[in-house]
């Protein structure tokens, strides 16, 4: 598939607020990005016309009940089968922040046995309260995650987070088993690290929210659904990075671009 033919669908619900900058990133890569209201997608049932599906960041429906819980249930109920088919066909789904919360709430992530009926993980309230700050994450995927293939293994990426509920948790009685499966399936994509590249080990604020095992992002076993708390779209251009003025000339791009580039390349190659 050629780049300019690729169509990315950025769904938005009331309260979604990172759609414009996410669309800007895809457009910069030469992809057609369309921001469409979730009600319209429900009405028109045209999900499968698209090659990329993105759930952008925000506070869908005010994040009442739990972050993204309402939107996730609504999506399941209204377009559940379409979503499952989209995923089963290997098309890429990217969930950023609120989008990650949605993918967990809807059972697509971690999705050990395909989509789960109930959430298998949680993005709980931060131990540190709401935080907006730049963090560093290390890329751990050994190649399974199709949406980060352009990111070198073990590379440390700088991106900002901005959320009150992003503390990744598994049920306590299953967390060791689930973690083993994440590693076995190569589903662990990003972990928070310290400036020297070593894992944050829960230390605030390198791990900004208290996430268990410093987990910042995971993918499904098939590697085509990725959810992450940091915002790659806010680290897309060099002038968005926190220390660009320290260079004589600002860098053209930030680390976030690698993720969007991976998504687009994956579609180019596969379809």
């Amino acid at each position: 598939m050629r780049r300019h033919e690729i169509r990315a669908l950025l769904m938005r619900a009331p309260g979604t607020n990172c759609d414009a900058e996410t669309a800007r990133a895809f457009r910069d890569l030469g992809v057609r990005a369309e921001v469409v209201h979730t009600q319209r997608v429900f009405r028109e049932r045209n999900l499968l016309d698209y090659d990329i599906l993105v759930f952008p960041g925000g506070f869908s429906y005010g994040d009442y009940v739990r972050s993204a819980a309402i939107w996730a249930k609504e999506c399941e109920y209204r377009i559940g089968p379409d979503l499952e088919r989209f995923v089963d066909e290997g098309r890429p789904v990217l969930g950023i922040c609120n989008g990650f919360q949605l993918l967990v709430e809807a059972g697509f992530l971690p999705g050990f046995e395909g989509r789960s009926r109930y959430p298998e993980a949680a993005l709980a309230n931060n131990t540190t309260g709401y935080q907006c700050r730049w963090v560093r994450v290390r890329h751990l995927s050994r190649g399974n995650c199709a949406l980060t293939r352009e990111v070198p293994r073990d590379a440390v990426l700088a991106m900002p987070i901005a959320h009150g509920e992003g503390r990744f948790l598994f049920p306590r009685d299953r967390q060791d088993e689930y973690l083993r499966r994440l590693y076995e399936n190569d589903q662990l994509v990003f972990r928070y690290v310290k400036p020297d590249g070593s894992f944050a080990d829960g230390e605030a604020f390198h791990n900004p929210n208290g996430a268990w095992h410093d987990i910042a992002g995971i993918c499904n076993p098939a590697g085509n659904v990725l959810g992450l708390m940091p915002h790659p779209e806010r680290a897309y251009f060099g002038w968005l990075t926190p220390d660009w003025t320290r260079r004589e000339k600002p860098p053209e791009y930030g680390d976030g671009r690698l993720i969007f580039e991976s998504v687009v390349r994956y579609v180019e190659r596969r379809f």
Partner: protein
Amino acid sequence: MSRIARSPHPFEHFTIRLEGAGDDELREVAAALGLGLSVEEMRAIRDHYAAVGRDASDVELQTYDQTWSEHCFHKTFKGVIETPEGVIDGLLRTYIRRVVEELGPDWCFSVFEDNAGIVDLDGEHAVAIKVETHNHPSAIEPFGGAATGLGGVIRDVLGVWADPIACMDVLCFGPLDFDYGRLPEGVKHPAYLFRGVVDGIGSYGNSIGIPTVNGATVFDEDYTGNVVVYAGCVGVLRKDRYVREVKPGDYIVLAGGRTGLDGIHGVTFASAELTEESEEVSRPAVQIASPIEEEKIKRAVKRISAGRLGSGITDIGGGGLSCGVCETADRYGLGAEVHLDRVPLKYPDMAPWEIWVSESQERMLLAVPPENLDRVLQIFEDEQVEATVIGRYTEGGDARVYYDGVLVARLDLGALFSPPRVRRATAWRPPERGEPEFPEPSDLGEVLRRLLAAPNVASKERVVRRYDHEVKGQTVVKPLQGWNAGPNDAAVLKPLEDSWRGISISCGVNPRYGKIDPYWMAASAIDEAVRNNVAVGGRRIALLDNFTWGNPEYEDRLGGLVRACRACYDVARAYGTPFISGKDSLYNESPLGPVAPTLLVTALGIVPDVRRAVTMDLKGEGNAVYLVGATRWELGGSEYYRLMGHLGASVPRLDPAETAASYRRLTSAIDAGLVRACHDLSEGGLGVAAAEMAFTGGLGLELSLSSVPAEGGMRGDLLLFSESNGRLLVEVPRRHRSSFEEAMEGSVYARVGTVTDEPRLRVSGRRGVVVDLPLDELMAAWKTPLGGSA
């Protein structure tokens, strides 16, 4: 009361016979209806009804009450003031608006006319900006008060068809460690207010997805009884979508949240003093916030604006529908017909007057030509926003308000918008304060460490990180700089996708100076706002004034206000920086006395190419550090004096012409690429600014006090901590030194130091080294008090 009679209708409605009523009776009527109108105003209303020969209705009197409130009409700023130096015919006209009238800049698009001030961005686009206060509600219910304050100012920006892209907040609290035992009945503790206000702003701004990019947090005893919450918003619009052409027959469309009993008499409450009973009496005046509702409205308004489908728009804020409808009609020389029974309510059985004045949040009022109505309503439906036609604009100058087909109010807009002018007198005397005398402390390093930890200097990271300052992906210079999170002077945004042209947003506020002299307080606030903007590379600056003052009916408070306004004219005129919008909040009085006289100045500048923006962190070893501006023996109101237990009298002054010239030269040096870092000197003076630049950049700095251009005979501590205006520290690479010096020719400046790779701040004075501290200690001192992170 015999003058008030219930109408024979099946809903709550009263007629009020004002004919021949004496002052006592007028007072009784006002009290019975809960009106904040003065006797003079009630007399004017009585005479109006005598002239038209009929009784008044409750809905009508409530409308007068709202429209004539200080909050809505700004009676003090528009009134006549007698001062010992002569009569002032309107403070706003004489001192604030006059700057823009005399300067006549071609880049001002809409000034003091709309909900927000609007200036040019790039010829095709414009920037709208507005700052509001929400002090009284925040004192009663800090979370809701602050959240709705932000919600309201965002709607002001939507109310000029602009897309809101950034928020600002400036918060003033009493000391967080204020002794509970000294709190009077009805006053909430500063720590409680602090938490609630910060959470309220965060909750609203984050949810609606507009970054909070600039602000300040100030602590002072004089805010204990009167918390101050300023919320601001900046938006961008295409000039060809700024539609203001309401015609007779256009529909009045009310969109957004439902109308309820929250926010009844908000403006009356805001125009009175806070008392022990405020909580009980005025709780219903505080509105309830729903940021997601406003997010949906924002999307809908953007689409309606893109199609130029509306002919007018305004937000429903203070005074509710009564102000929104009447002001719109009056602006276009029209009348209006409104049916209150069509207004969607949160619950049944609200009286017509309550529907008419309710300040329920997240509501916009649009004027829509008949041919566009279906499309507008469809857009609102798409965005899941309730929108209702509640009436039409009409020919003629009166507003007719109906409920169930019954005419419940008929308002002559000419009379409504001609309240009697207030006439007030002033008396301001400089407070009798002396300059303190104390020996120079032996360890200035220890003083510096304590200053960095002082509440007004220490890192506000705990507040800043509660707010998303990156959403929308336009924040080029962030409130906190780099990984070490030092304090940037201004935010820089890149609002347009296809252009490098940016805007810079900064502020200035110096409440402690106001206790000594409001004139120099105001002058300093303007200078600080402009200086902060210049530091990042901003120019062509527009200003906003936001006064928070005590009761203007006291002659001393009003006298101080007049002095502050005079400074606004003098300094803004000399700087060539016009005021384009503003707001005043008066009557900030509590059982603890008046609020510290406070002027917040917000500055909006242009950065021609955001890639040339300058941040405050030191960048390179071996670079020279220059101090621009003269240091004077004027530490009155300074953080250093406060630390030593004094207020003092020698408040910082300003030579506006000289300072403006030196800013222009600095801007040309920045444009020539000669400047690597720049930081303004404010609270804590040279010592604090130098420490902040060093630890933020992770580079050492050697400073020599003997090189500081200063008034003769100043001691080391005074040189290091003076807060003289007009000063900045500038880092210049070695190879650009001569070009920089050439660019600054004619200004007061000197090379005062060098960047080193040894992570220490070392300051030498006449006595040898007076400060020698590792950067991590300085940074820890700065970050610890309010809780930051390394």
